[in-house]
């Protein structure tokens, strides 16, 4: 079946040249086509896993899981959303399931993603000494995001980086929409604090930077 893209859903995920053909061929069991899908999307899936997990080894394991799951479920992709969006949602859900298996399965994320007092943003948010000096470069922001408490990082990556809506995040994290908004706000406040002293941010664990 030929996929029928919905143009309104492709704002941040425009179709990639050759992708639609590779999807159809992969659906019919063509291993080279699946290899092409991996080549097209491996960086984006891995980067998402790395940002959500903050750990290279786990991110590689989840990337592997995501593509194996893709292989099994590709036949159900109808093309009603961008393939990238569909694959991202699949990846996010797998990572969340992984995290729950690691210890979050007995209580809701709404309770457990809240960080400790010392990790929470300070409340003197309006004072001048917490203000940023100017623009923020993306490498520094990447390091600051990696330093966020896991719950803050999760919501920030899903909303501000991946572009999910609060109602979608609430469904994925099994929390309220209000909680998603609140966590995002706290994440941004915490980032503001961290970005005030970029020299104190740790280096990223991942060292396989792609040559730009």
């Amino acid at each position: 079946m030929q996929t029928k893209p919905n143009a309104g859903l492709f704002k941040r995920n425009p179709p990639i040249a050759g992708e639609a053909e590779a999807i159809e061929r992969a659906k019919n069991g063509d291993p080279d086509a699946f290899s092409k899908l991996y080549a097209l999307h491996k960086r984006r899936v891995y980067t998402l896993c790395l940002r959500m997990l903050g750990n290279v080894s786990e991110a590689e394991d989840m990337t592997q899981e995501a593509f194996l799951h893709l292989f099994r479920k590709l036949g159900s992709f109808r093309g009603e959303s961008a393939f990238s969006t569909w694959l991202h949602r699949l990846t996010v859900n797998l990572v969340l399931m992984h995290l729950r298996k690691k210890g979050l399965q007995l209580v809701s994320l709404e309770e457990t993603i809240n960080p400790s007092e010392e990790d929470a943003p300070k409340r003197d948010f309006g004072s001048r000494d917490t203000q940023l000096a100017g623009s923020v470069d993306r490498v520094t922001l990447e390091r600051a995001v990696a330093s966020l408490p896991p719950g803050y990082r999760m919501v920030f990556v899903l909303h501000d980086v991946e572009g999910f809506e609060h109602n979608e995040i609430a469904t994925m994290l099994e929390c309220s929409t209000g909680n998603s908004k609140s966590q995002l706000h706290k994440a941004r406040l915490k980032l503001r604090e961290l970005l005030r002293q970029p020299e104190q941010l740790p280096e990223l664990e991942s060292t396989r930077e792609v040559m730009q």
Partner: protein
Amino acid sequence: MTDLANFDFDSMTTAEFEQHLPELFASSDGGKVSEDQRLAGFLAKNPDCAALVRDLETIAETAKGLFEPDHEPSDAVWSKIATQLQHEPAELSADGDVDGSEDPTK
């Protein structure tokens, strides 16, 4: 979440501003609280709050640039996937009831 439809922003305190800011960001057009005309007077009178809004907008705007991937998995990841696929029968039937708008992990 707070209903801001009938809220008096001109007489808002900084504490109320702090309380309502998550919702203001969530409901603003494109996350641009600084362009919300209801807040123009308040932000003009409270430069620290205006600076906060500006900083948070900068962070959110810069974050969009992180969408483009920076990292690459090792070659071992594809090797493991390829090995696994050799031992796994294809289940690529299109008869599932999951479409692109639903949870693809089910």
